[in-house]
C-alpha cells in the first residue's frame, strides 16, 4: 500500500514562531507537493519539488519555504507564522508526469495548523 505520511495531524503554534511540517513518502516518487486547503477555495499549491534539492514556487508561496534533502522527505517551513496561515496543509507525491496510466497524486492525511 502506498503511503504519504505527515508528521502531525494537529498543531497549534504562536504568531512569529518558525514552524516545520514534515512529509515522508515510501513510493520512490520523484515529485512532491505542498497544498493548502481552505473552505471554498479548494486546494492551492504552495510549493512543488521534482527532485532532491529542486523546488518550484506554486500559486501561493509567500510566507513559506521548503526543503528536500532526501527523495522521500519534503518539508514545509513557515518562517514566521501568522494567523492567516491557519489552515489544513496537505502533502502529496506523484510520478514525474500524469501521462502514466498508473498516475495520480497520492495524499497524506493532512496537518491542521492553528496559529494563535
Amino acid at each position, binding site marked *: 500500500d502506498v503511503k504519504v505520511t505527515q508528521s502531525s495531524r494537529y498543531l497549534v503554534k504562536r504568531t512569529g514562531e518558525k514552524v516545520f511540517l514534515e512529509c515522508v513518502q515510501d513510493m520512490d516518487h520523484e515529485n512532491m507537493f505542498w497544498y493548502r486547503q481552505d473552505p*471554498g477555495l479548494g486546494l*492551492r*499549491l504552495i510549493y512543488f519539488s521534482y527532485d532532491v534539492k529542486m523546488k518550484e514556487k506554486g500559486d501561493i508561496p509567500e510566507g513559506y519555504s521548503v526543503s528536500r534533502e532526501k527523495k522521500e522527505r519534503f518539508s514545509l517551513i513557515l518562517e514566521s507564522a501568522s494567523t492567516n496561515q491557519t489552515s489544513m496543509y496537505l502533502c502529496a507525491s506523484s510520478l514525474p508526469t500524469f501521462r502514466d*496510466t498508473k498516475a495520480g*497524486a497520492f495524499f497524506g492525511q493532512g496537518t491542521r495548523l492553528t496559529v494563535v
Partner: protein
Amino acid sequence: AQSVTQLDSQVPVFEEAPVELRCNYSSSVSVYLFWYVQYPNQGLQLLLKYLSGSTLVKGINGFEAEFNKSQTSFHLRKPSVHISDTAEYFCAVSEGNNDYKLSFGAGTTVTVRA
C-alpha cells in the same frame, strides 16, 4: 493558465438517489482530469481519472465521469448513493504541456440523508 470550476458548493441528496457533481475547466491544450474524494478528517483519495481513450470513465465505489471536450466538462455521477458517500469531492486538472501539476476546484460537499 487553467482554472477549474465546480458549479455546486453543496449538494444534499437522499440515500439511494442519483447524484451528479459538475466540473468545468478552461484550458486551450490537452488535459488530464481527475476526481478526488475527501472523507471527514482524512486526506484525498483518487476516485477516477481521464487520461485518454474512452470519454466515459469508471472509478471506485460505483462512481463514473464523462469527459466532454466541446463543453470542457468532466461531470461525476453515481446512480444510487449511500450514507457513506457523504464527503467532499474535488475535481482536478493537469494540462498536457504542464502535466506534473494539478489545479483543483473549490470542492463540492455531498451530504447524503436517510
